[in-house]
């Protein structure tokens, strides 16, 4: 990474004129900022892992495959309190209680977080009680 990439992104975070120019015409703004072609391509790639790794001087992960379109929910409960016309609503739990439990997958439940990012969590359960006595 060139030092200019990080400096440019810091400017985007604090200089509204720079940000507006970037939003209006990103390729031109990046060229005008004097960024290398590699940095220009990186910043326009939409590849979060590689941008993060570059900024942290970490080994670059493989390029991400094009991300699938977001699968957006359709929350209809408020507009159609009795269900969407022509669609059958998902069944709610019966009066007898919960659904039957399927088999657990054989694999363990450990999740690896993205290799590039270890978020500094700020919350752990029950450090204090917010209940007012």
């Amino acid at each position, binding site marked *: 990474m060139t030092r200019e990439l*990080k*400096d440019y*992104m*810091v400017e*985007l*975070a*604090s200089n509204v004129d720079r*940000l507006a120019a*970037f939003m209006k015409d990103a390729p031109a703004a990046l060229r005008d900022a004097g960024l290398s072609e590699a940095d220009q391509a990186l*910043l*326009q*790639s*939409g590849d*979060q892992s590689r*941008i*993060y790794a570059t*900024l942290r001087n970490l080994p670059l992960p493989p390029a991400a495959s094009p*991300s699938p379109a*977001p*699968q*957006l*929910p*359709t*929350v209809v*409960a*408020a*507009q*159609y*309190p009795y*269900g969407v016309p022509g669609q059958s*609503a*998902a069944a*709610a*739990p019966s009066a007898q*209680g*919960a*659904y039957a*439990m*399927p088999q*657990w*997958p054989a*694999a363990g*439940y*450990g*999740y*690896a*977080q*993205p*290799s590039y*990012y*270890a*978020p*500094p*969590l*700020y*919350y*752990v*359960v029950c*450090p*204090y009680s917010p209940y007012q006595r």
Partner: protein
Amino acid sequence: MFDERLIVVGTGIRTIGQLTLETIAWLKRADKALYIVSDPIAEELIKTLNPAGAESLHPFYADNKPRLQTYNEMIERTLSYVRDGQRVCLAAYGHPGVFAYPTHESVRRARAEGFKARMLPGISAEDCLFADLNIDPAMAGCQTYEATDFLINGRVIDNTSNVILWQIGVLGDATFKSTHYDIKGMPQLLTKLYQSYNPAHDVYIYEAPLFPGVEPVVRKVPLWMLPQAGASAISTLYIPPAAPPRSDPGIAAAMGFR
């Protein structure tokens, strides 16, 4: 006015575009600009704004160290500067008051010791979720819980409302891990959710983007597939309503609704 000894600010999830002017001004004005961020742009910006006073609190984290211990050390470091007569700005990513213990507790303790302290709002992951998933908490209501708290404290779900579970990828783990969290509470979480939802009910893994031009992660899976959905420490679980609201016709009529 503007004479706080401790000011707590948020850098947003995506620093570029979500950092407020007031936050920038406080970071610049403070004697000490303490920060708990991992976004390299936020970190660099804070160092640029306040080269003499910038200090990362990230070194307090350590693998397998209880996070509560880390948080208490962060609070103590923050207050030590306040007691020393310095004007302190404490910056956290997201909203500094949403799912953030050391920030809130620093303000509480500073006030208890007689120092003027204030928190400014920021943009949280939940704010990003509302925008990216195009849902309004006013529609059907919204219940928000930290995932482990939801499990161990007997929280009750209303499956006619939106439900958001934070920190789904660190479920049951009270320590810090730099690479891999063991979410040992997942079977118990599914057991509890099955009391309110059909296993085929679609749920969403959500991750807000950190940089401009990056799309959010929005991954739809049926509930029973949740353990395989690839949630990480930055993932939030969104569960849409599963049933229509249970209206009370008597009250609605009394209030004039038809």
